[in-house]
């Protein structure tokens, strides 16, 4: 069977290649390097995003597609060092309160208007403060002003020092939006939201809802000779197995992490001519954890929470449930991010110890049945719920699973109406950006599923996190975060399960696809398809 | 083989008189086997007969006698599962039993055609009547093009359909029963076949329409010389139309002969029984009723209609118009009329199965229309009904015991007491107490009707309304049930309202009769005087249409 499949995909591919060759001939040769110009890249967007206006919506699929249209001032290397993008260079003042950016000249919006420091000042100082549900928290807290000093120079003043400020200029956090289109309008209903206008290498062409999104090359892109690709299609395929099949048959050439179930990744990566990488997620470093509602019995007892961590086998979760595309987590910070303490040890899988802890806690488990609120984002999360149920039952918990769709899950987690549920969140390169939100007692607020929903409250942790955020000294920050990690693991502030490794699968003839710490969310102006 | 007059040796063959030359049809020793599991091995067993050109031969018998099968054989249209097992069916010199399917198709409609019992179901409801005849013409390649339409117009004119130009465009459901049967006859005549098979062609029709159709068939025979094999259960019709009669019983031909011979001097005991059971048209001398008026209707009026909606107009039919009558203890009132005359509506209004719109119904002096529903229930107990269809009037899922006792129990009697009376009554109506344990489908039609009567009697009624209680029964059973009615009435001094379309039945049972036409009682009086000297034109028309008056004169 696999033989047969292989042959199939090969013939399909060669057909595509023929077509590409034709396109390449007609394109002007730039002479430089070995990069081939032209060609179509087919990817998948899953689920279909609500909009492509990146300043208004930052869901994963939106970022993926709109990351080709919009740009921010910087991008980040795999070790999370800022790299120039729309900003050529930047300077931080000694007190850590003023940042000045020198912008690329000659950048034009897709509608032909020039991109200037006014746009940056408007975007960061006005627009995103209103529309960005994650960045607005940071901006409103730390940003005093954003000013255009000249058409290519912009200055940010902070109210107090903020360590990870330079990590903010990633395209999904601070995407630049055109002032001349949005200034003074109702952002939500601006008609341009349907036809996004950015500075990126690809322009919006067409969106057939339920079918595909079509982007085409921006001929006036500010990086000369780029992009190499002519066009990109993002296809909408609601069923996971069908998405795997699409890749297998060569209809799409790139699979992003999460596009197909991990079981299919295992199969597809073994196909000939397929390249796999788990790189390109360093900025996000998604970490899966279990939220136990600290307000309610039995999880108000720290020993019960510790027992839970002994009752489940993180290795089994990583190897079987996530099919090897995960790594057991040792704490709240992913090992691919800054400040992770590698010496930290997670609780070992030990049912006997779990039972002991339950006994020590003095909690009568039969009086506190546990409901697992399932996490509605794919098969492996369902398996995870089933697995955790089994594990807890062996320790003596009474467990049932409550199914939920995305709406109910978000609602109930936001309203703290759960016993135990799962979640995974991006870390955004720095604990102050992606991690602290889950542990600060000031963030015990209803209304968002990505706050401190489990209700963890420790003043010492609060102090550590606040101090670390305001510091601009990496060494000091590292010490503070190490202490935080120890407490969070000891007290099971959350049940850390796994660092998810999202695998990018692509056909081997596609080059320069994953280059930075934001991977496929990158503009792809460097990517090209080999003849 | 039964010994009958005019039997050939060996087989019971009965031929027409040889004087008229070669017979058109010769059926010789025909047997048709029934599928395994039937109530007898043969549908038809060893019958032989002939039909001469231009002759009308009636096949008479009760239901299940095989008379229809005999007719269908001549068309080669036996129901699936039936096959000719022996014998010959000769049309001229050709044995239809051996004919190919194509040959049979060529004969059907051209040489032999057929008239069915139910003219509505015999016509395809989705096609215009003209299309259905055109189809027949087309199948035989006759009267192509415009000639076809002219032919149909001629035929419609011939069979007496009014306004042929208009009717030709009609769908079957737009025609009256009589018109439909004329259309069917017109279709049968379209290619002037030598033989027409008529399977109970008038049974579904009213008596006046029946008389017209019989006239038409006689005219066809006279004008066209067509032979007609006429299947019927009605000796009156036989007497009116037949040249010769074949009597069938359980698949066998028991008697045959010229109509007058057979009807005057039936030889076979079965024929004698059948003929004896036909009620006479002259009123019987009944014991006189009492004086007390038990039931009176005054000005009963009922309209049916579909109420108007937002987008359609209301429609009304005046079903009963100001009907009035009285019934005394021990008296039977016959309500006579054709279908649609409102007689059933009147009967149901009396027991308030239908709510009349106006008028009074006085039962033992109290107006049923104005008393409360509570006291009506206790009055209703004494006002009972016997229904037409003996099968549908008994709940198939209940044992007879429950059927009889449910009524009294509903009025507060104990089940045990009611059961004692049920055992008595079941004997009274001529069944054994064992019947109480059985279900309705285990009984014959006549027995079921006896159970229906017993059910009414369980309530110890003063009045019984009987709605066509014998019309669904074979003639011999009908006679027994009528006998039972007479006997019960005399014994229990019941007042009875007896609804019937059959003047002969009315003559046997009724002290007085009310004749209804289009919802109105047009004539009302003692049976003897109405029968002797009908006053109203419609009544006279009814009497004129009663078939078999010759038969009555032969029986005197």
């Amino acid at each position, binding site marked *: 069977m696999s033989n047969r499949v292989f042959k199939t995909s090969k013939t399909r591919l060669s057909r595509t290649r023929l077509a590409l060759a034709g396109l390449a001939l007609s394109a002007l040769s730039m002479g430089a390097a070995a990069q081939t110009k032209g060609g179509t890249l087919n990817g998948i967007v899953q689920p279909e995003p609500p909009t492509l206006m990146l300043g208004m919506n930052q869901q994963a699929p939106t970022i993926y597609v709109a990351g080709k249209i919009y740009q921010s001032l910087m991008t980040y290397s795999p070790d999370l060092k800022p790299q120039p993008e729309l900003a050529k260079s930047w300077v931080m003042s000694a007190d850590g309160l003023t940042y000045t950016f020198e912008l690329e000249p000659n950048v034009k919006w897709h509608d032909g208007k020039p991109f200037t420091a006014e746009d940056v000042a408007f975007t960061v100082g006005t627009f995103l403060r209103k529309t960005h549900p994650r960045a607005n928290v940071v901006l409103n807290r730390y940003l005093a002003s954003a000013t255009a000093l000249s058409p290519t120079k912009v200055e940010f003043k902070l109210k107090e020092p903020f360590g990870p400020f330079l990590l903010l200029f990633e395209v999904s956090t601070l995407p630049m939006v055109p002032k001349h289109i949005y200034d003074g309008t109702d952002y939500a209903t601006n008609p341009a939201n349907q036809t996004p206008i950015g500075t990126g290498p690809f322009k919006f062409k067409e969106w057939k809802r339920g079918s595909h999104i079509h982007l085409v090359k921006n001929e006036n892109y500010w990086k000369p000779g780029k992009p190499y690709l002519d066009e990109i299609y993002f296809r909408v395929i609601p069923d996971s197995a069908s998405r795997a099949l699409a890749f297998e048959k060569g209809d799409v050439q790139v699979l992003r992490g999460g596009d197909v179930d991990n079981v*299919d990744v295992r199969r597809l990566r073994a196909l000939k001519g397929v390249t796999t990488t788990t790189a390109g997620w360093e900025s996000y470093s998604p970490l899966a954890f279990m939220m136990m509602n600290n307000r309610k019995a039995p999880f108000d007892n720290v020993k019960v929470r510790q027992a839970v961590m002994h009752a489940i086998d993180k290795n089994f979760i990583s190897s079987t449930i996530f099919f090897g595309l995960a790594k057991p987590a040792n704490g709240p910070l992913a090992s691919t991010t800054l400040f992770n303490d590698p010496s930290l040890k997670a609780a070992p899988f030990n049912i006997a110890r779990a039972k002991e802890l339950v006994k020590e806690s003095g909690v009568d488990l039969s009086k506190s049945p546990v409901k697992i609120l*399932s996490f509605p984002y794919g098969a492996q999360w*369902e398996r995870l719920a089933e697995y955790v*149920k089994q594990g807890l039952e062996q320790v003596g918990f009474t467990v049932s699973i409550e199914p939920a*769709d995305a709406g109910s899950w978000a609602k109930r987690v936001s309203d703290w109406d759960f016993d135990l549920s799962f979640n995974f969140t991006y870390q955004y390169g720095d604990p102050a950006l992606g991690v602290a939100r889950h542990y600060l007692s000031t963030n015990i607020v209803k209304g968002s599923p990505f706050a401190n929903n489990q209700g963890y409250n420790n003043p010492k942790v609060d102090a550590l996190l606040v101090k670390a955020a305001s510091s601009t000294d990496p060494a000091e920050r590292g010490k503070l975060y190490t202490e935080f990690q120890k407490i969070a693991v000891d007290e099971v502030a959350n049940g850390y399960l796994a660092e998810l490794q999202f695998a990018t699968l692509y056909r081997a003839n596609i080059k320069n696809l994953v280059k930075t710490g934001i991977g496929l969310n990158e503009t792809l102006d460097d990517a090209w398809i080999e003849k | 083989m039964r010994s009958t007059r005019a039997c050939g040796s060996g087989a019971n063959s009965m031929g027409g008189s040889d004087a008229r030359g070669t017979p058109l049809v010769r059926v010789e020793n025909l047997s048709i086997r029934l599928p395994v599991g039937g109530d007898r091995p043969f549908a038809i067993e060893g019958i032989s007969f002939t039909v001469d050109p231009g002759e009308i031969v009636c096949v008479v018998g009760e239901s299940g006698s095989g008379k229809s099968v005999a007719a269908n054989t001549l068309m080669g249209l036996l129901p699936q599962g039936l096959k000719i097992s022996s014998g010959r069916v000769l049309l001229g010199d050709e044995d239809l039993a051996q004919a190919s399917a194509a040959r049979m198709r060529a004969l059907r409609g051209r040489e032999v055609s057929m008239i069915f019992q139910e003219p509505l179901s015999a016509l395809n409801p989705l096609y215009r009547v003209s299309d259905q005849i055109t189809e027949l013409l087309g199948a035989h390649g006759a009267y192509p093009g415009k000639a076809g339409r002219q032919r149909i117009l001629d035929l419609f004119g011939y069979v007496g359909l009014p306004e042929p130009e208009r009717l030709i465009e009609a769908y079957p459901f737009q025609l009256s029963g009589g018109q439909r049967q004329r259309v069917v006859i017109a279709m049968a005549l379209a290619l002037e076949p030598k033989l027409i098979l008529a399977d109970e062609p008038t049974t579904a029709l009213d008596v006046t329409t029946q008389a017209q159709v019989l006239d038409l068939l006689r005219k066809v025979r006279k004008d066209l010389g067509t032979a007609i094999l006429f299947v019927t259960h009605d000796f009156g019709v036989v007497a009116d139309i037949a040249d010769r009669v074949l009597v069938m019983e359980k698949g066998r031909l028991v008697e045959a002969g010229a109509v007058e011979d057979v009807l005057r001097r039936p030889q076979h005991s079965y024929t004698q029984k059948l003929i004896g059971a036909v009620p006479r048209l002259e009123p019987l001398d009944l014991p006189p009723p009492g004086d007390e008026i038990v039931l009176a209707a005054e000005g009963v009026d009922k309209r049916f209609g579909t109420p108007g909606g937002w987008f359609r107009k209301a429609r009304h039919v005046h079903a009963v118009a100001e009907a009035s009558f009285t019934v005394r203890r021990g008296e039977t009132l016959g309500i006579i009329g054709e279908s649609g005359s409102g007689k059933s509506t009147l009967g149901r209004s009396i027991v308030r199965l239908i709510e009349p719109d106006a008028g009074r119904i006085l039962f033992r002096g109290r107006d049923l229309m104005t008393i409360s529903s509570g006291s009506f229930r206790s009055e209703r107990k004494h006002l*009972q*009904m016997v*229904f037409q269809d003996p099968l549908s009037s008994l709940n198939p899922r209940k044992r007879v015991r429950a059927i009889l006792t449910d009524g009294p129990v509903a009025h507060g009697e104990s089940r045990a007491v009611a059961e004692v009376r049920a055992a008595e009554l079941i004997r009274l109506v001529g069944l054994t107490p064992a019947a109480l344990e059985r279900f309705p489908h285990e009984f014959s039609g006549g027995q079921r009707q006896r159970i229906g009567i017993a059910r009414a009697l369980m309530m110890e009624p003063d009045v019984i309304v009987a709605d066509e209680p014998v019309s669904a029964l074979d003639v011999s059973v009908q006679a027994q049930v009528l006998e039972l009615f007479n006997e019960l009435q005399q014994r229990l001094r019941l007042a009875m309202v007896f609804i019937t379309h059959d003047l002969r039945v009315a003559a046997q049972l009724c002290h007085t009769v009310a004749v209804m036409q289009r919802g109105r009682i047009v004539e009302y009086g003692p049976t003897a005087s109405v029968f002797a000297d009908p006053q109203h034109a419609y009544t006279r028309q009814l009497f004129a249409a009663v078939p078999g008056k010759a038969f009555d004169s032969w029986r005197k």
Partner: protein
Amino acid sequence: MSGFWKRYRRNWGAVAGLAILLFVLLIALFAPLLYPVSPWQMSAPPLLDPFENSAFPLGTDMLGRDIAAGLVHGARVSLLVGTISTLCAVIAGVGIGSLAGYFGGWIDDVLMRITEFFQTIPQLAMAVVLVAIFTPSLVSIVTAIALVSWPPVARLVRAEVLSLREREFVEAARVLGRPTHLILFDEILPNALPPVIVTATLMIATAILTEAALSFLGLGDRNFMSWGFMIGAARSMLREAPWLSVMPGVAILLTVLAINLAGEGLNDALNPRLRQRGE
């Protein structure tokens, strides 16, 4: 009754259907004895092939759960959801249909408008919405299936009652002065039941399919192993381990087929006249 069985026996398909159905029923009844351990228990290495290990004759799924145990316990859910939802739908349908049919007039009008209303929304779509709204659980699934499947029963019963109401034995009961509720429940309804029973049988089959479809869309009760859930869960493994979805699929197919065959047999046996005409 013996006549019923004799007629039923004539249809060999119906007999085969009944046999399969009884088999499934027995398995469902004795599931806790056959597989006392929960079907969710991960008791073996994941993805054992069928017939590879005699302790797990049908193999194991992606978490090492016994497929055979899943099938056996799934039979319980399928039959349970099928019968209970049908029962609810039949009770509702019979109630509404008989009231509408017997009383007619504005009662009939109102009830039939409601029925039409329910029929206007596509069935599966409505079931999906209802289950999603009340959060998936056996109760909400049964309720949703019952809610979308009663209208045909109501229409059938109404039609039967309408025709039976005009039958003379019902008129006879009225003339005898039997009270209305007895006329409806003692005289009319028993006679309307045979077609309802046949319809109900077929509805069980449809309900099983609907439950499976809901589970497939991720709207099943996650605390009970059901066949639809097994197919839904195995969907992502379609290429790696097709037997994971083939086996519960075949189980559904066979059960639904069996119920249909039995239903047809029941129809023939309950309506002997129809059968004869049909022949």
